[in-house]
């Protein structure tokens, strides 16, 4: 029995089977299913953010813009142009990624926080366009009546239908991120995050890798936004403000920036808490800011490092990077 449990080859099929069965158990429990759906959407965004901020250490202050672009792209293509959702979704992801490349080009070569400024500026521009470009986006009132996805004549309606779609996308996102993190490419990206000049000195095109990481992370954000549009059927600029980027940032910081298990744990905690936290607005914002500051000061590698320390597995000390004298 224990030999069967330890057999690595069984992990993937067993995990997949578990994921197919679990929602069946929750069938009818709309509230729990809704939480799971929120969780899965957040997982996709956060893993995208982890690739950008956790691996290559590019501080994007505009992740919500790519999420929003994905959402509005799906809304426009399905509601206004009559596309099928499943055709619109990849387009939304790719559009977000393409814009990420354009945004990245002016700033990925520089040291320092230029990247944060440019991504912030981009998110601000996107938000203003969402509000002012009324003919296309519906303006501040938002975009109503986005059709629900249909596949083979069947329309997704309840929470239960969506969970399999979200499980599929989130599963792919987790698999992609884990694979990246363990692959030579992921290690190179971590090295770029820690010491870009050393990596550059060894002949690697750092700017290209930064753009690539930014592209992949933003495609994930765009896909999550597209899923959100098809799920919520209503989107408005209110859902895509800097506060949402801060929310994503808090989740990632608590998880430990570059730890995938930490990020997943943190997403779960925050999704469970978020419905309660919303009632405390604006104290919830204060709490998020405080969480970020406290974690940076006392646990800069987050829950991920705490778990690693308890299990005694990986290095749990913050890596210190030599600064210029």
């Amino acid at each position, binding site marked *: 029995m224990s030999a069967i449990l330890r057999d690595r080859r069984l992990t993937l099929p067993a995990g997949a089977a578990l994921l197919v069965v679990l929602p069946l158990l929750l069938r009818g429990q709309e509230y729990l299913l809704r939480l799971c759906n929120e969780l899965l959407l957040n997982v996709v965004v956060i893993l995208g953010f982890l690739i950008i901020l956790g691996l290559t250490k590019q501080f994007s202050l505009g992740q919500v813009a790519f999420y929003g672009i994905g959402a509005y792209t799906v809304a426009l293509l399905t509601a206004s142009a009559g596309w099928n959702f499943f055709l619109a979704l990849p387009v939304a992801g790719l559009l977000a990624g393409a814009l990420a490349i354009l945004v990245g080009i002016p700033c990925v*070569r520089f040291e*320092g926080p230029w990247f944060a*400024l440019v991504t912030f500026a981009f998110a601000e521009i996107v938000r203003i366009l969402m509000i002012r470009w009324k003919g296309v986006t519906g303006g501040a009132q938002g975009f109503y009546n986005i059709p629900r996805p249909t596949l083979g004549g069947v329309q997704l309606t309840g929470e239960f239908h969506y969970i399999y779609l979200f499980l599929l996308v989130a599963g792919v996102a987790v698999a992609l991120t884990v694979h990246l993190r363990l692959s030579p490419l992921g290690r190179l990206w971590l090295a770029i995050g820690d010491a870009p000049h050393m990596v550059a000195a060894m002949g690697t095109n750092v700017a290209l890798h930064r753009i690539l990481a930014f592209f992949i992370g933003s495609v994930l954000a765009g896909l999550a936004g597209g899923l959100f549009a098809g799920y919520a059927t209503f989107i408005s600029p209110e859902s895509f403000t800097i506060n949402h980027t*801060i929310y994503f*940032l808090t989740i990632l910081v608590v998880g430990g920036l570059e730890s995938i298990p930490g990020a997943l744990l943190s997403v779960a905690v925050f999704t469970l808490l978020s419905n309660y936290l919303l009632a405390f607005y*604006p104290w919830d914002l204060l709490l*998020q*800011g405080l969480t*970020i500051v406290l974690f940076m000061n006392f646990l800069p590698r987050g829950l991920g490092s705490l778990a690693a320390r308890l299990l005694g597995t990986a290095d749990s000390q913050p890596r210190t990077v030599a600064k210029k004298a």
Partner: protein
Amino acid sequence: MSDLTLLANQLVWGVLVGVSYSLLAIAFSLIFATSGTVNFATGEFAMVGAYFCYTILSKLGGQVLLAVLLALLGLFAFGMVVERLAFRRLYKLDPILILIATIGISTMLKSLVLIVWGPYSKSLPPLLSTGPISLGPIILMPQNLVLLAVGLGTMIVFHLFMNYTRLGTAMRATAQNVKGASLVGINTARCVNLTWAIGSVIAGIGGILIAFAYNLSIDMGGLIGMKGFASAITGGFGNILASTYGGMVLGVAENLAGGLISFYYKDVIAFGLVVLILFLRPSGLFVAPTQVRKV
């Protein structure tokens, strides 16, 4: 109003807003120089200063100078406390962690202002009761001239302080080389602490100027903060004189664009301009193009 008059008035207004941006740009450059991080909470420091000023002014009633001074004193202490509690431990770590922590501070300040002062925008009472003066086609508000003078005066005082006092020299030494500065007997931790305090005060003056010129709102912090940072980049980051020019360029450019194209797209145009400058001339408009580290 003819187009030319509109243009002239936007130009004057742009210079005024530009001075405030310049002050924030100086605060960015100063803190960056000594602690190696961009303080993304600079705009929120400015906002908190303006709100301090608002409350003290409403309590004191009329004594503007005293209210402003008290607000700035409060901000000075506030900057010191924040640096000591939230950032002192972080300098030896990866710079991006400090950057993230400044975002945490900015979020906290934004929500604190929302909690203490509420979501509605407020306005400060007018400084002077005299009516507008017309200088040919240009209509000037005397109050704006006072604000402009205060902004420029702050820059001059700051420049003199940095270059002609012992403390200013110690700060510049710390900014150039922390180890070297501590070897010659400078208390570098204290210097870094003081740059945060002084940076906060300068940002606060910028915030108060903006508050007198427009009004106070909870969104002002994020926006003027990023405009200040953008000004520093437009002029030349880290170079205080160049940052000052950068603020003027940005202020004038966005107000001209706002007047000529559309008020709503003012910020879009301002940020677009900065990205363009970053792309074409990353060192900034007023600095020789060699000083930016690239990968």
